[in-house]
Structures are given as C-alpha cells and as structure tokens.
C-alpha cells in the first residue's frame, strides 16, 4: 500500500469478492494479495444477505494484466465463490469517514459551515474537539478532507470503499465461475502480442 506513490498512476478498479463466511478467510485473501504483490488501496469485509457468504470489496490500482492475475489467483482459493470487477460507470461506491478535529468556540462556526455544505453530520462535540461523519464516494471524501488543511486533525478514520452495481442481481452472481472467466479473459480469443 505504501508503495503507491512510487508507481505510475494505474487505473483504480473495484473488485467484489464473495467468500465463504468462515474464520481465516480474510487471512487467506490478504496473504495471497501480499504474496503476489497486488497493489491494494482498500479492503472491506461485510456480511451479506446469505449468512454463509461474506463480501470483500477491494479497490486496487493496476493494469489489465495485473487485474487478470488478481481475479484468477483469487479464484484459485478454495474459499472463493465469486470474484469479479465492478463496472465503474455503473456502480455505486460509498465510503464512511469519521473525522475528529480540534476546535473551540472561535472556529466552531466555520467548521459547521463546511459540514453543512458537504452534508456531513456533527456527531460529537466537546469544548475542544468535534467529530464529523460523512458518507459518500471516495472522491467526495477526498475533497472534503482538503477543506481541513488549516485545522488540526486529531484522529481520522475511513472505512474503505464498499460498492454494488446498479440494477438487478449482478450477472456474475447468476453464472458458474467458468463462464465468468470467459468474460473476464478477452485475451483468450485475440492476439495480445
């Protein structure tokens, strides 16, 4: 993760990974990413409507070749049920931010103003600090954070991206893995050299 700055900017991609809801699954997935050197920006794990399945949402920077390797290597894990990339133009991506900022009566008003423009909630207030909550696309949260350059941030916490594609049940969740692979691997059919 920390090597991100040294690499050429690669496209940010969002991958949805449905795995067995068992202990050790997160360790298996993260160990694989670490071992293969996949460049992960964020990773969130959450429950789904099926108690036997967890959803891991991964944002990842890399080219087509790296993406294919990530999908195929992840698919090799016994705990993986489905893994697919989300279509960015057609996806809903959300992240939650909690931001604790140092403030007193002198600057409370201007902070309230920033919060109200971004529709962030003030969820805690003490004589010398304030906690803001904001939900939105990662870009919105990035933009929101630039507003606090002149303030003292005491603590900050972002959940990482969680995402779904628009419309009905995702087509990849209705097919066996082999068919998805054919969709994901266009290079099977055409010359890449």
């Amino acid at each position, binding site marked *: 993760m920390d090597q991100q700055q040294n690499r050429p900017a690669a496209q940010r991609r969002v991958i949805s990974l449905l795995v067995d809801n068992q202990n050790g699954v997160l360790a298996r997935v993260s160990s694989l990413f670490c*071992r293969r050197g996949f460049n992960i920006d964020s990773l969130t794990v959450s429950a789904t409507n099926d108690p036997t399945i967890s959803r891991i949402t991964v944002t990842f920077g890399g080219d087509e070749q790296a993406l294919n*390797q990530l999908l195929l290597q992840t*698919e*090799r894990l016994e*705990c993986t049920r489905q893994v697919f990339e989300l279509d960015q133009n057609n996806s809903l991506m959300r992240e939650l931010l909690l931001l604790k900022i140092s403030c007193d009566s002198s600057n409370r008003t201007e902070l309230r103003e920033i919060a109200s423009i971004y529709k962030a909630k003030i969820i805690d207030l003490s004589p010398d600090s304030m906690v803001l909550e904001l939900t939105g696309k990662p870009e919105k949260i990035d933009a929101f954070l630039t507003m606090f350059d002149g303030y003292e941030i005491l603590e900050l916490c972002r959940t990482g991206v969680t995402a779904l594609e628009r419309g009905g049940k995702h087509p990849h969740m209705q097919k066996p893995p082999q068919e998805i692979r054919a969709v994901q*691997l266009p*290079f099977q*059919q055409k*010359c*890449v050299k």
Partner: protein
Amino acid sequence: MKLTGSQIFVEVLVEQGVDTIFGYPGGAVLNLYDELYRNSDRVRHILTAHEQGASHAADGYARATGRTGVVLATSGPGATNLVTGIATAYMDSVPMVAFTGNVPTTQLGRDSFQEAYIEGITMPITKHNFTVRHVEDLADTMRAAFRIAQSGRKGPVLVDIPKDVTAAVCEFENKAPELIRTVTAYDEEQVRQAAKLINEAQRPVVYFGGGVRSAAGCQPLRDLVYKADMPATYTLMGTGVLDYGDPHNLGLIGMHGCYTANKAVSEADLVVAVGTRFSDRVALNPDKFAAKAKIIQIDIDPSELGKNVAVDLSLVGDAAYILQAILPHLEQRYHMRWMEQIEQWQRNDYKPKDSDTELKPHQIIREICEQAGPEAVYVTDVGQHQMWAAQYLHHTKSRGFITSGGLGTMGFGYGAAIGAQVALGNDQRVVMLTGDGSFHMNLNEGCTAVSYDLPIITVIFNNQVLGMVRQWQTSFYGKRYSNTDPHRKTDFVKLAEAFGAKGYRAETPEQFKAVFAEAMKNPGPSWIDCRIGKDERVLPMIPGGGDINDIIMK
C-alpha cells in the same frame, strides 16, 4: 455407528483408498497412532527418521503413482518439519494430504507445549488447509482434503487435528470417494483456432512440462508431435515423455537446456505450450522468449495463462482432453526444411567428452541407464547432478523421473526414493542420483531404507564441493568460492555400512561399472560414492535473464 476421531481417521483413509502413509509419532497424535497399531493390516505406516523425510516420501509416492501421498506428523516441531516437503509438493503440483496433530482445542492459542499455528504457516504453500475443531467435521474435512488435492491443478492440502478431536466420539457413516471434477473452459472454436494455427505453421515447436504427465497426456502429445511433424522440447518436469534418438526430441529447454531446444524456440513461428508455466528457468527473459512465434498455451490452471509470458491463444483444461480434441482437426504435415535446420543445430550442439581414466558425470549416467534400463525409476536431489540427470538419462517410463523442480529442494531425493520404492514394491528398480551436498542434508533416511529393506541404489556424484553454487561463483563471482568448499571428510562407504547398508566407491568408469552391477544384486540399499572432478560444470548454460545469444557452451 459411533466411532472415535481416531477410528474415523483410519476409516476415511481406507475409504479414500489409502494403503500406505508416511509419518512420525508424537504426543498430539498418540490416539491416531494407537488406532494405526490396531489397523496395521489395513493401513501401512512407514516410519522415517525425520518428518521432512516423511513428507518427501509421501511426495515421491504420489509422483511415482499419481495417487495422493499421505503424511502424518505430530504438533509443533513435527508439523513445522513438514513445511519444506509441503512447499516442494506445492511448487510441483503434487497431490498430497498432510495430517498434523495439535494440542487440544482448549489449549489452542495459549502457546502450549508443542503448539504451532500450522494452518497459518502453511496457508501460502497449500491449495487449502483446515483445522478440525469438532469431531463431527472430521470425516467430511478429510474427504474434502482428498478431493481438493486431486482436483484441477493438483497440490498439497493440510488437515490439522487437535488431540481432543481424535478422542471425541460421534456418529460415522462410510461414503464412496467423490468423483474428481476437471475444470474445462475451452470451446470448439478455440480448438479449431488452435488446430488452424498448427496446420498453418512452418516452424512449429511443442514446449511441454509436468502438466502432461499429471494429465496422463503422454500419448496424445506424441500423436501431436508426429501428426504435425512438430519437434518438442520439455522442462525438467516433462522429461521422459518422448523417446531418445527420435529427431523430434529436441531435449531439455531453459537455463541448462541444449542449444537446439533454446534455438528452435527462439526461431519458431508457433510454440504450443502444454502443461507448463514459462518459469524463469525456461523463459529466462520473458520479453525475448519465442519472440518470433505465436504462442498457444494449454493449462489446467487458468491463473497460469499469460502469467509470465503473453500468449495468443489459451485453452483451459486437462491437457490430455484438449490435445485429443485438437488432434482430429490436424492435417498430416511434413516440415522438411525446419527439421533439416534442427538436425543441423543438433549436429553442432554441446557434447560432453568421454574419458577412460576419470569418472565423467555423463558416463556415470550412461552406465546407470545401460544397467538399470529405461523402465527404472530415477530420483534426484538438487544441483549439478540433477541437471546432468535431466540432460543424459534416457528413461521412458512415465513417472520415471522424480525431481524437485519448482522449489529446488536439496535433500529431497532420499525421502522421495523411499516413497517411490515403497509405492512400487521392491521388484521395481529405483535409482537415486545425488550430490555430496544434497545427500548430506537428509542422508539420515538411510536408516529408513535399511529398516524396510528397500533396494534403492544411491549414486553420489561426489565432487567434494557444492558444485552448482560453485559453478556460478566460477562464472559470475570471479572464482571467489565463498562457503562452497567445505573440506568434508565423510566416508560414504563406512557411513553406509554404519547404517546397515552396502557402500561402494568408484573412481574410474571401469570401477563404476563393476560396483553398480554389484549394487544391482544387493537386496537392500546400496550407496555408491563416485569421485568426480570439482571443476565439472553443467553445460550448456544460459545465465538468468539472458537468451540464446548468451549461451555458454564451453
């Protein structure tokens, strides 16, 4: 039927067709060993000197037969001693199930005596692993382990069983072993495209690896070679599929492959890669590998497609099925000019010089082949002797060459030879080729070969140095021989005798011929100490990252 965990353990082994396991007892597996004692007529247990030897033996058993090798070790150090063996099997896609004991579930996570988190340790070197926390899960977990080990791209699976689970009781019912599914994702269109590329090629080459043997695809591969008049080269894991002396057999490819094979791939207009993964020992420079060729890749593991080298057409599935699907679409071809060109390269290829007085590695191997025959099983350790074996052994038995390819595990050989000999019975000739460096690592298993009267012939290529590393130091490190000349005084003849085996020494080709013939008659294990020069090198050689233009021939 109510059974204890230990009884279930034995019942599922029998149900899965396991007749032999390798292992070493200890505190956490006492219940399992007690049950094995009662069932020694149903499951044979081979006790090794060290758990690592047991893991290599299970691996050798699997490589020699294609069946799943099984190893059992206790918790903590017993389990960690398996790690190298499991990683070796993982890198070469060998089906293996490793069982480890562990401390009782109530003691897990408390740094108890002989506790190790083996599930975490082996996560990256197994296809999958399990900790069984409830006796009710034991039978199905074991069944899943055997299924996973043999399905798709084969590999090792570990099942960790805490001690209280082996004592607990639950209901048990026998089940028939699950059918192994093969994942195939190719379609008719891809098969036709592949056939079209092969039919149109002027300078085609097949490049194949261990996947051909795993898939039992030797015959369809030979059919492809002859029908398309297509010469073939192979990786270390793919040796022994094609007949020697056949003009289509280009020999080994890669770092220590022959000139002809590497040249042919660099000049080819089509490379058909079957069950192989373009490793850095073959595609030394992935950008220049088969630069003039279109590449068709056939592999059972979709994650191998285009992993190291970009390919033009890829087919996912069992190599034997896919080749059989392609064959009917092929037209009989004769590539006269291409084959002539190859013959010309072969005439000028590297050839080692014979000697009457000194023992030369290739002459030792030639003599072994003449006496033990092409149907013997040859096992190697890792290093120079391994490369010489791959270059000069003329064996044709499928599963007749057992070597640690991917991980390159020194000390692999003796355990693997024990596994192979146990699997195939004492009527099968098993010859182990090793170096003095590799052999020193795990020669403790000599006691195992003696205990079980295994007539393994061990040929030690003794150059008194760590030859392969020394060769690199000669070529690339200005002859600064850092820690490769250990001045060991080991007398392998006496050591063999100390173990209860027969020991021989040979310093000339004539002596070797005589003592190998002696060893062939010996009903128990024999070690032959062959003194070779410390400056013997493995040639040809292409340095890492290089291509055919960088080849070292003298």
